[in-house]
């Protein structure tokens, strides 16, 4: 799957990359206008929640209706179902309660230099998705890594997705990229030059810094999430009262589909023999 975006690296056009970047920095809000798409606030409430259908008093004149938010919302839902389908190893994400444009995630590194690292991150999706820049991925705690900004914690995703192409690029690829970064370390054009230099020059020191970073990160594992969002990912020590039951449910969940099928056979009908296109071709209708 890597090929999808790593191949794009060769076609990088620096001017384009920079231009996009600058635009984002100066006025992130206006990108949408530029694209002639309706403005969508980042904090869009998931529309599947009836509670969010709301207050008529806010009706103002002159505003214009738009289905844009619906398209965006469904695009992101589609992306999310894709992520689930990919079953990315060691990566878990969950869209924020407040905005479908913000996803919380955590990545577990299981071997290599960053082994035992548990890094929480947030994915920010541009509101003109899928026509804008590629999504940003920011680690909650800046990880010591050549491609992670030591101040903001942002991962340099753009080098892999110089141009975000609808239909070709998907958010799961960004997540996959975030994972790969910890196994194959790239030091070219680093966001963290110190890390890059150390990695090249002094592997030992680099290693110990990484280990320290991992330790630091893990020591903050149980901290409250930076963002107050009901869907933010938070860890807590094992509490049998809470977790045993949850674990139980997770395991019974696997059994559920069968029961589910039995109960759901109420509605549909078919007397077509598999492999045939003739109606009532089944020898004996087992349904009766």
């Amino acid at each position: 799957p890597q090929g999808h975006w790593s191949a794009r690296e060769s076609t990088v056009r620096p001017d384009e990359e920079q231009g996009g970047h600058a635009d984002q920095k100066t006025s992130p809000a206006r990108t949408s206008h530029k694209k002639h798409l309706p403005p969508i606030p980042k904090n869009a409430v998931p529309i599947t929640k009836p509670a969010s259908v709301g207050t008529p008093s806010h009706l103002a004149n002159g505003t214009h209706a738009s289905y844009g938010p619906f398209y965006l919302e469904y695009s992101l839902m589609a992306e999310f179902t894709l992520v689930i389908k990919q079953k990315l190893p060691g990566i878990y994400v969950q869209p924020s309660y407040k905005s479908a444009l913000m996803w919380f995630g955590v990545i577990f590194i299981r071997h290599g230099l960053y082994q035992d690292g548990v890094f929480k991150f947030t994915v920010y999706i541009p509101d003109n998705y899928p026509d804008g820049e590629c999504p940003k991925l920011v680690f909650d705690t800046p990880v010591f890594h050549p491609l992670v900004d030591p101040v903001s914690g942002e991962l340099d995703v753009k080098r892999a997705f110089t141009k975000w192409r609808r239909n070709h690029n998907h958010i799961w690829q960004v997540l996959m990229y975030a994972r790969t970064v910890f196994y194959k370390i790239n030091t070219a054009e680093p966001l963290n030059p110190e890390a890059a230099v150390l990695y090249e020059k002094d592997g030992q020191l680099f290693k110990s810094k990484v280990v320290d970073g991992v330790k630091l990160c893990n020591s903050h594992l149980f901290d409250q999430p930076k963002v107050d969002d009901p869907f933010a990912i938070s860890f807590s020590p094992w509490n049998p009262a809470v977790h045993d039951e949850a674990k139980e449910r997770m395991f019974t969940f696997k059994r559920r589909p069968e029961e589910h099928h039995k109960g759901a056979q109420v509605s549909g009908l078919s007397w077509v023999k598999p492999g045939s296109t003739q109606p009532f071709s089944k020898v004996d209708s087992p349904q009766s």
Partner: protein
Amino acid sequence: MMASVVANGNQDGQSLVLNGVDPETCMIVFKNHWAQVVKILEKHDPLRSSSMHPTLSVINLGVGSGGVHRFGPIPGDEASAVQNYVEHMLFLLMEEESGQGGCMGPILEFVVMENVMERLFVWSLRREFTDEMKLEQLKMYEMLVGQARQPLLHHKPILRPLMMLLSSCSGTAAPAVEAELVLLLNQLCCILAKDPSILELFFHTSEDQGATNFLIFSLLIPYIHREGTVGQQARDALLLIMSLSAENERVARHVVENTYFCPVLATGLSGLYSSLPTKLEVPNEEWHCLHKVDWMRMPSLVQFLNSLEFCNAVIQVAHPSIKDQLVAYIYNGFLVPVLAPALHKLTLEEVMTTTAYLDLFLRSISETSLLQTFLSFILLHQHESVYILDTLVSRINTPFQLGTVSMALFRTLIGFYCEDVMLQLILRYLIPCNHMMLSQRRVVRERDFYSTSAAKMLALTPSCCSPDHSPPPLRQLDSILFSKGGADTPNSSSTADEQKSFSEEDDSSGNSCTIGSEIYLDVSYLHYLYDARLSISSCIRACQVWSALYDAEDPPPEKYQPGVLEEPKLEGRQTQTALKRVPKLLVSNARSGLPRGEPPSIHQLELEWDDSYDACPVQTTETPVEGKPAHLSPSEPPKHIQEMRRTAIMLVKGSYIEENEFQDDVMVYNLVAKKDSSEAEHAEETQSDPAHAPLRNGLTLPTSLVSDNDKNSLKAKAKGQTDCNGNLQNATPVESGEDFLAQYEELICILDSEGRGKRVKGDRELNKPVSPVEEEEEEEMDFMSFTAETPEPEKLQSPFGTVQRLRSGSSNRCYSVPFTGPFISVLFSRLENMLTNPLHVNLLLTGILAQLAAYPQPLLRSFLLNTNLVFQPTVRSLYQVLATVKSQIEELSASRLDFPERITAAQHWLLAREASFTATDKGGSCGSRQQDGGRILKSSPPPKPKAISLDQTEVFATVLFAEFLKELSAITQEHSILSYIPVEE
């Protein structure tokens, strides 16, 4: 067995202890009474027989020959003396507890030994056996059976006279006796259900009468279709036996082999059907299906539905062999001979009525195998060489109420989530993938990640319908709280803080979630999304039982190119199935199309009888149909059947009525059949060569009805006429035909003048592959067939060929013309005329399309909803049709200044309608779950409706059109999620 019981009783008789009353005393009293009774009995016994067990056969003869009064009348005082004694005796018997270890109590033992009950019955026969007397005896047994503290029915000396009594009562017409009889039978069935061990005895007792019989069952049969309590009790009782049959092979075999149960049930349906009104009184123009309020007012329909429900219940609980037999009889005894002709009746009203009935029946059935029977009738049965389905589809396009009633029927059919139905209606035409460019096959499965199709759909919204243009409350814009996550957290100030807490930094780094402006959304769209989610997910769940995915790979398009879906194959399959399902007979009748030519009465009666009793069916292989009736009709029914019929009649002469009752049903059935045959007589002339039939039904050229307004229009009209009437024009070309034609042409004129200017290209594409000359001829032929008295065979060949091939999609010519099937074609052509359709038609139409759009099969989904799919140039897509409508609307609104105003009025009107609709429909009428686009403009306070006439169809259609776009778009969006949610392994 009994001997041992008796012996046992003798031994321990003295040691028995009874509760309550001193059993000793009871016994003495009982014996004394009996002694008195016997004295009187013997005094009047003609034979002065000392035999303790007068044989019943003797009595039989006595009664039968009317020798009741041979020995003079019995004095009244003696009769009442016996009466008194018996009452006391019975009380004692009833109150007696069973003996130790479940053996008989002494009184019961005495009753059995002395054969008390039988002698009492003989006594009552000897006197004048009046209804009153029967009633008395029935009540006596009912009391005994119902209240006795020990089981009585295990003992033949009690059971036998009971059976005799039952037999003797069956013939009486006195309602009181019937009611009591059925009540007692019902009680017996309850006991049987609880204690099936008695079953054997019931059979044995009957054997004494010279036949394998299950009397209580046979006695109940005549009451199957009865109205009121008696009928209900009888049906309940029969159901008890039916569920017994599921466990007990013998009962099942008996019912199937030795009773008329299934034929009576099925032909009864036919009988009841024939008493339904042939023309419904339709409340208004908008009416299109029978709701509960409608049929509750029609007693005959209620009765029919009761019987249908009973069939449904029998199929639910009975043994598979009974189920199979019943289902076969319903197919061949009701659907084919009665319903099929009824669907091809003479007038539009009649046909419409039948269609509405069929729709109601389908909605009333819950049992899958019964539903299967109905559906296979619709999908596979050919009435005069035309599939019922094709006829029904073609009627959608009638501008009359028949059109909407037909649509309502299809709404029901599509709502079954039945693969077979969808296959025949649409999928079979999509499987070959000829409707799209070859390169597009992969697109079928492609996912619309970014709602581009939805956006394209919504972009068709006419400018006059943009939500911005309508004033509140119609403009259902709400600020949906995309802003800063405020609304659901009650404290908004804290929200602001939260916002700050994480966005400040984000802002600076460009990650930002700070766009704060409120967005105004069309709230109604949320409802559409919600509805779409519900309907798609239930459809997905339902379709899990389907055999294939229909995704342009499974089934493989290459394998199912049109040529492969050959008609004959289908035919063979169908006949096979039929033969299998219809165990013995009637197959020839049902399938060949021949039978109607024959004088049906005796012949069919014999067939009927033969059918159920012929132990060794002739018909395991397909023998030529012609030979069959000749072979069967002259032959006598097998001996054992004659025997049985005789027994049935003779049991107690004239009183056992099963035969008669059944014959009544058969007569009704025959009447119907006769009527059909006379209707079909004309058809019969051509019938000798079945190939001629279809030409009369221009049916299969689906859009022909409203299609042409060019120079060919007259022919088209003629064609259209046959369209909606099937064979009728041939049957009565003079009487109703001309009148109807005149009406019809008038209507067409009106329709034509109403500016349905743009003609659908798709319509005549059907004819394209035919060379011009041929086409000319074909048109000519259709017209001829319609007017001419006798169609000329040679000329008929060509239209037949074309028509047949078109429907089966099997000819080479067809191969070259991609065709998405008559159903789609008809729907689209109605949709294209949306602006001239009345509101209720559009509601139905869009409802059906929305139903179809909810199906998850990629072939269907992509065909209807994927605006990126590239179709063959000749294939019309839903999007194209919608675009046509949009441009019509834009034209209209540009030319009329007051259009926006009217739109607003129509929106108000619809909103008010919606409000009243939800208010009255709280109870939920059956079958209307897809009812209209009822969800339109939900959730707003009803405004005062402005006056607007429903005649302004184009205004209402415009409003509806905009809503329909939202609905489709919402469905499209939900598909992009729901169809791709990973299924848990």
